[in-house]
């Protein structure tokens, strides 16, 4: 649920930023506010807007109680139609559509060779989504659609995000209704398996995040490496910018919204 809240907050924020970049200010402001409302749901869950302190080795540190469940359900019910309407306003406005369509196009073949991940990859027709391909936790029981678009332009990157926002809202709805049991883990003294290599793959809002840890004979950490989705997607952005005017840079840049420090992580 935390992962989906994070996805919604960031996608909504990104769509608002795209709107601002084509000088269509109403959705830009509304999205900025709604993004905050989703971050505040994470705050409600674990006391931090970015989910810091929530996840610990082996599980989570904060469980949903009925009060929080109701509060969350109420907030989502209030926000969902607003999100839907604002995003419809954004994507149905002819001026916005004219700017988004055909801007920064990347072909499926190029995207495949560059290994684009997340919404940027899906916008080019690559259906890869770690939630579907490597389902962990409860994802195996959820229907995650493929969300593949084919045009590979800013429009496709925006549309994938809009679709994912609405799906994530549904996922949270169903998780709130299903009431899965969460048990909290306390922080035990961490004992890692000696001489081991572990790799994890998760679908973060930008795409696949991979953590890799290598331990020594005593279970101490020898190496720890994080691969951020931006590592793949910066090359997609440079592909988008081939032979385009400089005025298309900001829009393309926002449509990927990559991490500057994530590249060399």
């Amino acid at each position, binding site marked *: 649920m935390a992962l989906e809240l994070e996805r919604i907050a960031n996608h909504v924020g990104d769509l608002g930023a795209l709107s601002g970049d084509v000088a269509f200010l109403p959705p830009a402001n509304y999205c900025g506010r709604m993004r*905050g409302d989703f971050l505040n749901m994470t705050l409600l869950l674990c006391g931090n807007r970015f989910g810091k302190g929530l996840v610990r080795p082996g599980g989570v540190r904060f469980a949903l109680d009925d009060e929080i469940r109701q509060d969350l359900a109420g907030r989502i019910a209030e926000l969902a139609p607003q999100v839907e309407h604002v995003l419809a*306003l954004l994507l149905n406005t002819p001026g916005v559509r004219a700017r988004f369509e055909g801007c920064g196009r990347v072909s499926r073949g190029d995207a495949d060779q560059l290994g684009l991940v997340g919404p940027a990859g899906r916008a080019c027709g690559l259906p890869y989504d770690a939630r579907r391909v490597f389902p962990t936790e409860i994802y195996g029981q959820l229907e995650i659609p493929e969300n593949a678009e084919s045009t590979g332009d800013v429009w496709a990157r925006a549309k994938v995000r809009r679709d994912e926002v609405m799906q994530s809202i549904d996922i949270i709805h169903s998780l709130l209704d299903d009431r899965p049991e969460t048990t909290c883990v306390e922080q035990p003294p961490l004992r890692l398996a000696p001489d081991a290599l572990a790799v994890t793959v998760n679908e973060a809002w930008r795409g696949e995040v991979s953590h890799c840890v290598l331990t020594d004979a005593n279970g101490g950490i020898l190496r720890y490496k994080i691969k951020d989705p931006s590592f793949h997607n910066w090359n997609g952005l440079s592909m988008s910018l081939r032979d385009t005017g400089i005025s298309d840079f900001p829009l393309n840049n926002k449509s990927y919204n990559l991490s500057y420090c994530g590249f060399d992580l």
Partner: protein
Amino acid sequence: MLSVLKNRFEQGCRTSRYPKVNVQLPSRYRGRPVVNADVPADLAEACAAACPQEAIDAKARTLHLGRCVFCGNCERISGGQFVRFTQNFENGVAEKAHLVTQGDLPDLAAHARQHFKGLFGRSLQLRQVSAAGCNACEADLNVLATPFFDLARFGINFVASPRHADGIVVTGPISRNMKTALMQTYEATPQPRVVIAVGSCALSGGPFRGSNEITEGLDSLLPVDLFIPGCPPHPMTNLHALLTFFK
């Protein structure tokens, strides 16, 4: 057009009435910690040992707000007996020494540089320098421009160049590669200038303390006027600190 108006109507006015009306944060929010000095030594020591940030001084029974990442370990271990996190988001301080605390921070307004109030009280332009943090601090500064907080209504703005700024706001642990850029930004800001450190990273190196790639505290490079603790500080913490210090 109709759709624009319909959305405008549905969105309504979202701007908070803060500071006239206070903002209540949820119960799990970890704001200012309060330390109870009357606990057995072994409990205080257990908390200090479990703190990933070496932020707890078990003997003095104090907590270093600049190092703390508000993970809540100490509160859990002591069951709230030794350290308890309150919903109070007013955490900014003007002197580094004030960061070491038992929970009663000195009045920020009284310690603010009075001449800054005259100079910048009505208009304050700030340049943000993101120096290798995780980006959460920057994100929660950024949101001050969204309708709920609406920082611009207080005459405070973030600007695109240090040449246009009255001061800098620094986030992140200032990696070796960002140091030159940070110093150049500082030099490029016209005097008199303000320096604000935001987040555990900029205050002490945060989770990166001990690495030789970073700077353990912005104050070792520049004279810092305002310290805002948190990981990241809640936007209300930033807003409160800015308003109290400059208004």
